[in-house]
């Protein structure tokens, strides 16, 4: 068993897309991805210009690394679908329909992933919270998002330390004993973290008083919709129309 938290990255790297309003980025990204979901291969070809532009809007090498990870699912699709989908067999083994479905799925996976990573995920947790606030998402949900984001990093550090301790004490642990050791380790981490978090919350309530603890916990950054945001929306609308027309 191995704990692999090295690739969690909370740092927001600046890109050319930062000039646009986050609300505009989220709306355009989601609408365009939804159009890609409905499309077949001709529609995907018509819409591939936007993800290609987005690929070069930041650092392409870093995105390529992420895409390699995302495409692990595509590998299974290419192995399984040609063998399992019924239909005409090519070379006596591979189904033509399966190959075509695998191609369609892989294209969608990559195009949608590039669009959403650049347009939404690159905003980072804090700006996504601001966007959710402007979309009138309940404050409880947004506070939960911010607290979870905070505890993820605190717990990751603690779990990494505990995993190292288990590994050092019993490097050859296998089977039932390994499950028991890791379950106890997770249980200890969980109980300690839960106690500590509840004490922090009680302290916050003592300072803020009563139920007002949530008010103002999650504060939106000011956002301004400019002419260039409208232009971006129009550009995406034109591309969505092209995808829908060609599908």
């Amino acid at each position, binding site marked *: *068993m*191995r*704990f*692999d*938290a090295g690739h*969690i*990255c909370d740092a927001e790297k600046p890109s050319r897309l930062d000039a646009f309003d986050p609300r505009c980025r989220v709306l355009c990204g*989601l609408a365009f*991805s*939804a159009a*890609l*979901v409905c499309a077949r291969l001709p529609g995907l070809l018509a819409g591939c210009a936007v993800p290609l532009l987005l690929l070069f809007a930041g650092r392409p090498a870093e995105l390529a690394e992420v895409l390699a990870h995302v495409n692990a*699912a595509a590998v299974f*699709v290419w192995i*399984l*679908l040609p063998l*399992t*989908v019924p*239909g005409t067999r090519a070379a006596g083994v591979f189904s033509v329909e399966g190959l075509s479905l695998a191609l369609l799925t*892989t294209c*969608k*996976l990559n*195009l*949608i*992933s590039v669009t*959403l*990573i650049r347009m939404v*995920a690159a*905003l980072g*947790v804090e700006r*996504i919270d601001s966007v959710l606030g402007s979309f009138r998402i*309940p404050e*409880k*949900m947004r506070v*939960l998002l911010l*607290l*979870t984001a905070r*505890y*993820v990093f*605190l*717990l*990751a550090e603690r*779990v990494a330390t505990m995993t190292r301790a288990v590994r050092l004490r019993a490097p050859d642990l296998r089977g*039932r004993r390994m*499950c028991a050791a*890791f*379950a*106890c380790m*997770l*249980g200890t*981490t*969980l*109980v300690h*973290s*839960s*106690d500590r*978090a509840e004490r*922090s*919350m009680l302290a916050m309530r003592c300072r803020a008083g009563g139920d007002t*603890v949530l008010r103002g916990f999650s504060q939106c950054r000011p956002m301004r919709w400019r002419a260039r945001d409208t232009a971006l929306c129009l550009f995406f609308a034109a591309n969505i129309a092209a995808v829908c027309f060609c599908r």
Partner: protein
Amino acid sequence: MHISEGFLSPQVLAAGWVAAGVGTAVGLKKLKTDKIVRVAVFSSVFFLASLVNVRIGPASTHLSLIAPVGLVLGWSVFPALLTALLLQAVLLQFGGLLVLGVNTTDMALPGLIVYLLFAARIRRENGPAAAVFAFAAGFSAVILAAAGAGCFLTLSDPGMAGAVKVFLAAHLPLALAEGAITLVMVEFLKKTAPDILSE
């Protein structure tokens, strides 16, 4: 367990968002302000469980801990998993943003089912009976989640039915591992912090 972008049809995505929306709304309504921090801790535990890789023969898979999270949080499992999956999609590119509704439903619903079926019995019983219920909760949560993912994929494209069978079979060892881990975690919680399981 996470379904990636591009695999599902628009109808299935919409159905997933509706189910996740209803579950999250009910979960948020039932969630008291002073318990929000516990939900956040369990949400981050779910997030981090995905980073614990379990080796199964030449391949590896990751834990999900759906059952322990479900047993402790009850209806709040919906907002907890929605948050965790959103963070996984943003920070790690696990799953995706369009499929967030489907993934939330796929994992939170088994969590809620095991809570409704087993939580009261696990609290009431002690010894081997509680252990059997805890193992059953962990095992069935993974099987239900894998079956749910299989249903979503097959409903999107019936051609995927064959691949779904392989996908389901591959989750059997993980279900056994999660059953064992849930058993030990529940026994641990009953001994050290019974109040966490008692609500």
